[in-house]
């Protein structure tokens, strides 16, 4: 008998690990689906399987809690049951000996409190009141509701123009989204349960890049109605596009020199080439849309008088200040200013400069990577939380790192050092990460001396604000600087005025702006007394059952960092044809299989 044994992984343990991994994948893509009470019950049961059985709250309490939740699901519960559920979960949280128990109790409490309306609905109506939004999971995840399985099937059938046509039913910016969409669809992709989610953005880009021919949309008969769109960003362009295909005359008023909004003045050329953006915008304008650039709308009432309706989509283009000493030194600039210049093809020279970028969002990454391209000797991204807490997408952070940006996490800027009015450094204070505060892990000051990072330039990328003040003065209701409208985009108290996009939501994504523009277009059309439908005009290939196959996801590649950091040219390589077709064939067609079949799988018109 040996004294000690070398640890070995049993086959059963390997199966257990693979099941855990599969469960993780399953959970990662299915948050839109379940009934909150069902999910809470399943969560509690799952936790109970992890209980070692030693202690009462975990061994017995979780089972008791599960029984009570089942009473709710099987219509045996009343108000007393709900009280008992809460007391039970609280007891488990308060008295369990280890995290297996108390975390289960705590999360159950979070669920019970967060879903209290749903619990009540079950008890009172014996039905689930939670909206089932997993009709087609990727489509449900897409703010614009693009028919994703539809266009993927068209890519698979090598009908790329038709794919683009189908995308434009719900999103007139397929190119932009093919290049820079944050693709919330992929987070919900059911293929993720099998191996990896589909690379949906890559397939969209592939379709756009490989259109066989161009085409023009079907235009409704002219209505004679005139609509002014204030702001030529993604929300304004989307609204303008749909209104014009509905037959209305649209004029876009744009304060800057060119259209595009944050697509041009926020996203650097290396992610979204200006000539491609220009082409997409021109395609939209070719629907007969009038444009007035370099025209800032000052008098809303006067504009409203000239048009039958107005859509305000002014975006969020104001920079936010740090409020730190030395911020007015020469060499301090905001991300908004820097990216705006780049948008107008003005490329300042940063050679031999050391640059500190303050912030941890996508914009911070954009300016850091642009600074590298402008010749900066050294770029340091300074962030007071951890890299893991950054709001920037992982690939943006990785891209910045690969291009040579330093990431200085857990350092809070406290002052900008200067000499003779010129920046000489950024004074920072080391932080230590702490516990959750308002949903995020909060840092606090570490027991460490202040440091100064020597630099000649500081770029502040801590968010954008909305220039809503002038409109607020003219009677547009605003809340915390944002234009405050209802779900239908109509500005309360101003008949015929609608608003949406970043100026209403705060800085958000392209696809949310597209959704805002689409919603506004539909509602403006109704406001003008019409009910034009934007309809599916592409015949889709029949669905083919392929059964379960195993095939991982193809990723898009980037140009080599050493090469790409020297210019502003596009850095991302699209999928190859081979990759695109393999990817497209991985689609599980949730429009046909599963719940999608029940309700038709797609919205044919809106």
């Amino acid at each position, binding site marked *: 008998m040996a004294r000690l044994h070398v640890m070995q992984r049993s086959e059963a343990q390997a199966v257990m690990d693979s099941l855990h991994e599969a469960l993780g994948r399953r959970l990662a893509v299915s948050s839109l689906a*379940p*009934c909150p009470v*069902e999910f809470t019950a399943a969560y509690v049961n799952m936790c109970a399987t992890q209980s070692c059985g030693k202690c009462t709250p975990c061994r017995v309490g979780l089972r008791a809690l599960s029984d009570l939740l089942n009473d709710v*699901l*099987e*219509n045996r519960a009343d108000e007393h049951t709900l009280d008992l559920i809460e007391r039970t979960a609280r007891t488990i949280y308060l008295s369990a000996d280890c995290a297996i128990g108390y975390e289960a109790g705590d999360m159950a409490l979070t669920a019970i409190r967060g879903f209290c309306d749903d619990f009540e*609905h079950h008890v*009172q*109506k*014996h*039905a*689930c*009141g939670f909206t*089932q939004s997993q009709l087609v999971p990727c489509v449900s995840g897409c703010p614009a509701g693009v028919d994703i399985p539809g266009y993927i099937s068209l890519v698979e059938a090598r009908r790329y123009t038709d794919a683009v046509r189908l995308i434009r039913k719900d999103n007139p910016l397929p190119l932009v989204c093919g290049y820079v969409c944050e693709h919330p669809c992929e987070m919900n992709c059911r293929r993720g349960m099998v191996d990896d989610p589909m690379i949906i953005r890559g397939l969209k880009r592939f379709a756009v890049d490989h259109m066989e021919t161009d085409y023009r949309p079907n235009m409704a008969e002219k209505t004679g109605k005139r609509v002014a769109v204030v702001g030529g960003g993604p929300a304004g362009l989307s609204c303008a596009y749909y209104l014009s295909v509905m037959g209305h005359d649209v004029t876009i008023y744009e304060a800057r020199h060119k259209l595009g909004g944050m697509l041009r003045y926020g996203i650097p050329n290396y992610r979204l080439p200006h000539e491609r953006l220009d082409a997409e915008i021109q395609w939209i304008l070719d629907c007969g849309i009038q444009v007035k650039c370099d025209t800032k709308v000052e008098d809303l009432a006067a504009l409203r008088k000239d048009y039958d309706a107005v859509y305000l989509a002014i975006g969020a283009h104001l920079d936010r200040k740090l409020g730190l000493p030395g911020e007015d030194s020469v060499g301090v600039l905001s991300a908004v200013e820097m990216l705006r210049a780049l948008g107008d093809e003005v490329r300042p020279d940063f050679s031999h400069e050391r640059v500190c970028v303050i912030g941890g969002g996508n914009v911070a990454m954009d300016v850091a990577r642009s600074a590298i391209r402008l010749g900066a000797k050294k770029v340091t991204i300074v962030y007071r939380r951890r890299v893991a807490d950054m709001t920037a997408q992982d690939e943006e952070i990785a891209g910045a790192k690969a291009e040579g940006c330093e990431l200085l996490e857990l350092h809070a800027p406290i002052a900008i050092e200067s000499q003779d009015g010129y920046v000489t450094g950024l004074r920072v204070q080391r932080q230590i990460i702490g516990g959750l505060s308002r949903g995020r892990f909060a840092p606090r000051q570490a027991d460490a001396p202040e440091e100064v990072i020597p630099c000649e330039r500081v770029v502040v990328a801590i968010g954008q604000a909305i220039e809503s003040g002038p409109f607020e003065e003219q009677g547009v209701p605003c809340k915390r600087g944002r234009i405050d409208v209802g779900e239908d985009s109509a500005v309360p108290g101003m008949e015929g005025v609608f608003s949406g996009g970043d100026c209403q939501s705060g800085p958000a994504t392209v696809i949310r702006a597209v959704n805002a523009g689409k919603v506004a277009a539909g509602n403006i059309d109704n406001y003008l007394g019409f*009910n034009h439908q934007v309809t599916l005009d592409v015949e889709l290939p*029949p*669905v*083919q*059952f*392929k*059964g*379960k196959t195993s095939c991982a996801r193809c990723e898009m590649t980037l140009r080599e960092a050493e090469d790409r950091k020297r210019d502003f040219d596009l850095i991302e390589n699209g999928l190859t044809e081979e990759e695109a077709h393999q990817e497209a064939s991985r689609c599980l067609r949730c429009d*046909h*299989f599963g719940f999608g*079949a*029940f309700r038709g799988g797609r919205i044919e018109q809106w």
Partner: protein
Amino acid sequence: MVTLTIDGKQVTVPEHTSILDAARSVNINIPTLCFLRDINEIGACRACVVEIEGIDQLVAACNNTVLDGMVVRTNSPKVRMARKANVEFLLSQHDSECTSCVRSGNCTLQTVANDLGITSLPYTKHLPHQPWNQDFPLIRNNDKCINCLRCIQVCEKVQAEGIWDLTNRSSHTCVGVRGGGLIEDSDCALCGQCITHCPTGALRERDDTDRVFDALADPDRIVVVQVAPAVRTAWGEPFGLPREKATAQRLVTALKGMGFDYVFDTDFSADLTIMEEGSELVEHLKHPEGVKFPMFTSCCPGWVRYCKARHPRFTDQLSTSKSPGQMFGAIAKSYYAGLLGVDPHRIFCVEIMPCLAKKAEVDIPVMNDACGDPDVDVSLTVREVDRMIRAEHIDVFSLAETDFDQPLGTATGAAVIFGATGGVMEAALRTAYYLVTGENCDADAFKDVRGLDGWKEASFDIAGTTLHVAVASGLGNANRLLNALEAGEVSYDFVEIMACPGGCSGGGGLPIHDGEELAGVRGDVLWGLDRVAKLRRSHENPSIQAVYRDYLGAPLSERAEELLHTNQHAWKMPREA
């Protein structure tokens, strides 16, 4: 064309054909439960799974299409195992007390389970035991529901109602009133299409047969029964009695055999309806001041319920004429009681209808104009009458023909076509023509409104005036028509609407044949009866002439208004303002 192999047979079918249809084309039957053509092709029950060479998992045959070179096996060991197990799954959530189920012998689940040779159930039974208002004309028993979802789809897609929905998820998924409300508080029109499209006994009509048997057993009661037009197209179906044998006259014999004192024909009062409704239309046309057009027919209580619940702005435009069934009841307990010389309170009036909504109509509190009692006491669906015939052990094959009793048993061809979509319109126009011109038109002059199209339009010239009419059947079609009217896209003078697709011959109270839509062939029976009828215009009916001469005076007279018309606002749908 696509060529494939199914169970070793080579099959060539058009592209996009489903595997199910391809198999059926060579007489290979794949069982289905949830499948309902064009309405519910969702692959939910998994009874129709088949094996396709090269694919490990099984494929639903109902909603997947054939491919060239595909090799399909509908009865491989894998298929047998999975199909049987899936049906066993369904049975584990099904109350299989077939001996006390109205659908026993006509249940798709029973057939499929029997066909698969299921003799024992390996899984624990889980039944939801949900409560239901047993007084409501429509009864749902989720202990028998297999979640095929057909009812949801028919209600929403065909009938534009959306009463049903999935009310829970996961293993607790079940079908109920949308949002979890009570059926009696919903907008349900009681068309009964969910019942006739249910593969099991989860949906049925409230059974009122005992009330009728009790009345028949009561020596003080004079039990009068009327038979609606569409009933004669379908009552023999469950017995396998050929349509040409299953005449109204044989049904009269069966009903007499059960002990009904008088057996009359709702066709008589359909002629009466035409006199009243036709006169109402002619009045409107003559004096259009302040009248909103179109005028809508009101003889379908499902449609009236739908109109009041979902399109209340048109309620004022419903004809005030009662339905033929209600007119009959009002006449039976007044005029006919007088003819018999009996106290009308002794008369117990039963109607046999192809309809579920009639059960609600007879309970409308204001339908009591003859003597204060309900004008009609009980409304039976054809399914219930067929159950009574079986309960009485009547051999339908040996029934002789007996004529309806008189005088409420005489009717014209115009009345019998009430049971088919377009029939009321055509009947009304035949008499309206006479009322306007004083002359009879050709009886087939208005045949353009016939046919099974869901929304038909026609224009007719009557004495120099062009009359624009429309006919819709199925509430989904009605909804489209009403929306178009509301949007100003169409305009009509007179519109006939029937809640059930195809009219009463597609009625929700008729015998159930899973997967078959019989409104067309049943309607043809009625058009055939009209064609050979001696009298084809309601105003020519001698019994009608007599009732006006001896009792009512003239159409729209004070007594006619009192007995034969109603205020459509006198009662409310549950959520009606």
